[in-house]
């Protein structure tokens, strides 16, 4: 009986498949699809609810057809997702294989917990099997952003959120002033626009504790200073106090009543109703500002790079990424979801829909994407320039939420008229033992 004539048994077939899968080069040479290697597996994904998760969820059938993997997808609000993720990771048996995190807030925590697996080997294997994945499309800086201090790639960045200065073109034109390039010009322009009797305010920004800290730290970057360097708190320096004073001045002199209780939602409400001249926040809010169903200032929104401070010009960078749980029993299948979600197609979709800023570079360099952006050339130019000068606005420490809470309370008090120097001194005194304990742990 010749080989061709012999019936191929189930065991023989499985042995051949296993052999092919074990050698990526062979598999590729023989035409085996690396995306199909885990067909039939089941992967559970836990996401924060956002325009990104909505966009991915809308295209999940595409992932299932591409890989043959059955997907269970859950997207819940940010705060609840963070709690669920941490509690389940701590239990040692998370119900999900893939989760997304806010890199600026949670990276050190997940690193200390050892909760995510290092993606580098799987990334390299996929790149070898399918060069179209373009792993090099993630810049070294982006890869470093998603990596732990020891170099393990904890998450692949999905979305980068640069802080920009939104302005109301109509109000600024009426004031007869150019787009501010420095914080001094910003103060002058805010003062010129500010007409509280007409319910129009020069400035709006986050005032609620915790949420308000990035506003202060972004202004502080204008002095070229961060809040912690080499484990030492720099929150009582003259620069830190001046930044807090500037934050308080903008809010108290040119902001609406009650700004101390504003989170981004209230800021957005004021801005879309044409009641605020400037708003400092993440670039991801362009979509609602340009949505005719939600905004009264469609076509009147200007986008500018955060103005230069006394000594430097920087902006804040936030971002989120996706990783594979260390406890997952389907790590490779789970990684395929991470790879698909951060693939060129989805990143381009995200940019086009205004659902976020891709972590990959190619969608941003695509001339068609630049021409097609729903927010205009000024938005794109602001984005590219912001990417060039971005820095992390939050310290890379485990108790970053306590940092935001303690200094957030101090900043809220500044908005109510308290002395910035005394408030920052009090907050520093309260946070120092927390930081010390965290470093000892």
């Amino acid at each position: 009986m010749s080989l061709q004539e012999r019936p191929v048994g189930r065991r023989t077939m499985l042995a051949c498949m296993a052999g092919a899968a074990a050698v990526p080069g062979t598999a590729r040479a023989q035409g085996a699809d690396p995306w199909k290697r885990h067909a039939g597996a089941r992967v559970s994904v836990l996401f924060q609810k956002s325009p990104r998760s909505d966009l991915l969820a809308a295209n999940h059938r595409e992932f299932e057809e591409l890989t043959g993997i059955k997907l269970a997808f859950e997207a819940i609000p940010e705060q609840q997702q963070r709690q669920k993720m941490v509690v389940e990771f701590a239990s040692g048996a998370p119900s999900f294989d893939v989760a997304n995190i806010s890199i600026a807030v949670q990276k050190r925590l997940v690193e200390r917990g050892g909760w995510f697996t290092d993606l580098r080997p799987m990334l390299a294997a996929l790149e070898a099997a399918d060069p179209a994945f373009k792993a090099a499309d993630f810049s070294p800086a982006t890869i470093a952003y998603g990596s732990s201090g020891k170099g393990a790639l904890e998450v692949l960045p999905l979305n980068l959120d640069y802080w920009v200065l939104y302005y109301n073109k109509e109000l600024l034109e009426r004031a007869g002033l150019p787009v501010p390039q420095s914080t001094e010009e910003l103060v002058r322009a805010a003062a010129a626009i500010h007409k509280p009797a007409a319910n129009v305010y020069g400035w709006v920004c986050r005032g609620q504790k915790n949420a308000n800290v990035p506003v202060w730290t972004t202004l502080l970057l204008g002095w070229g200073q961060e809040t912690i360097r080499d484990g030492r708190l720099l929150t009582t320096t003259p620069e830190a106090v001046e930044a807090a004073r500037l934050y308080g001045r903008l809010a108290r002199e040119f902001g609406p009543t009650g700004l101390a209780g504003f989170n981004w939602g209230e800021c957005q409400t004021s801005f879309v109703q044409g009641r605020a001249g400037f708003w400092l926040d993440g670039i991801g809010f362009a979509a609602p500002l340009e949505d005719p169903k939600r905004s009264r200032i469609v076509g009147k929104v200007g986008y500018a790079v955060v103005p230069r401070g006394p000594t430097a010009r920087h902006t804040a960078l936030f971002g989120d990424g996706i990783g594979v749980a260390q406890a997952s029993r389907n790590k490779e299948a789970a990684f395929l979801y991470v790879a698909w979600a951060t693939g060129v197609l989805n990143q381009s979709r995200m940019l086009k829909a205004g659902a976020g800023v891709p972590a990959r570079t190619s969608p941003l360099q695509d001339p068609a994407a630049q021409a097609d952006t729903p927010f205009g050339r000024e938005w794109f130019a602001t984005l590219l320039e912001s990417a060039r000068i971005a820095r992390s606005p939050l310290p890379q420490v485990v108790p970053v939420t306590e940092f935001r809470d303690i200094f957030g309370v101090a900043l809220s008090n500044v908005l109510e008229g308290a002395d910035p120097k005394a408030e920052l001194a009090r907050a520093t005194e309260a946070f120092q033992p927390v930081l010390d304990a965290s470093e000892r742990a």
Partner: protein
Amino acid sequence: MLNKRGQLMWLAVPALGTIGLILFVPWVFTAGLSFFEWRFTGAPGFVGLQNYATLVQDKRFGEAVVRTLVYTAGSVAGPLLLGLGAALVFVRDFPGRQALRLAFSFPMLATPVSVALVWVMMLHPQSGVLNHMLSWFGIPPSAWIYSQRTVLATLIGIETWQWTPLMALILLGGMTTIPEELFEAARIDGASAVQTFRAITFPLLVPYLLVAAILRTIDAVKSIDLIFVMTSGGPGTASETINLYLYSNAFAFYNVGYASAISVFFLGLVFLLALALVWVKARHAVAA
């Protein structure tokens, strides 16, 4: 051999055991955790009474305790007084009473989270309808929940708006149990409305007022949903009650041991408050 009563008692054991497990196991677990330092990463470390020692010295916690007591007092007194007034109105017969009573009860039918979201929109200092309505009468806008000075009073006002109907319902039930003959006798004696209220209605309503106060106190002291959605404890810490501080420690700072110590303190506080009210009620029953 067990008698019939003893046999029947055994039938209750599974139910009692289940209730006991549900009630006490989480508390024993929480009390146990309060002696550990645990931040979800790594293994818990035994620290003895350290978390309780920190609790005593924690100024922010002390402020949260005072704020909780103020919030509870306001959220009990407001609905109770207005509920009493409403009950005095609704106990009388007048055209459209049923429809008005139904409309009056709407606030307590809504879930606190949806109530909170609606109020957040209404209280926005620039775009909220409340400041807009005040402007009709030349009243300057208020910052409501957006200022440290007004936030607690505003939240108590919303609690009062939501829970006055329930208090009115309880007191209305109490009023219908007062014999009509007493009011007839007062009328024959020429008693005024105020005298009738002081001598008949109020004394006979006291047991119902106490029940309403117990229910409202336990509910108000535990309140978290409304505050969490509307202010997250801010601006600053101006509306941070024990519950909010506990939540921050457990789920924002991941300081599980310390949050457990706060939980144990909080359970004690609720227990003491309930005990005090039950004692007052029992004393009143004996005196009556």
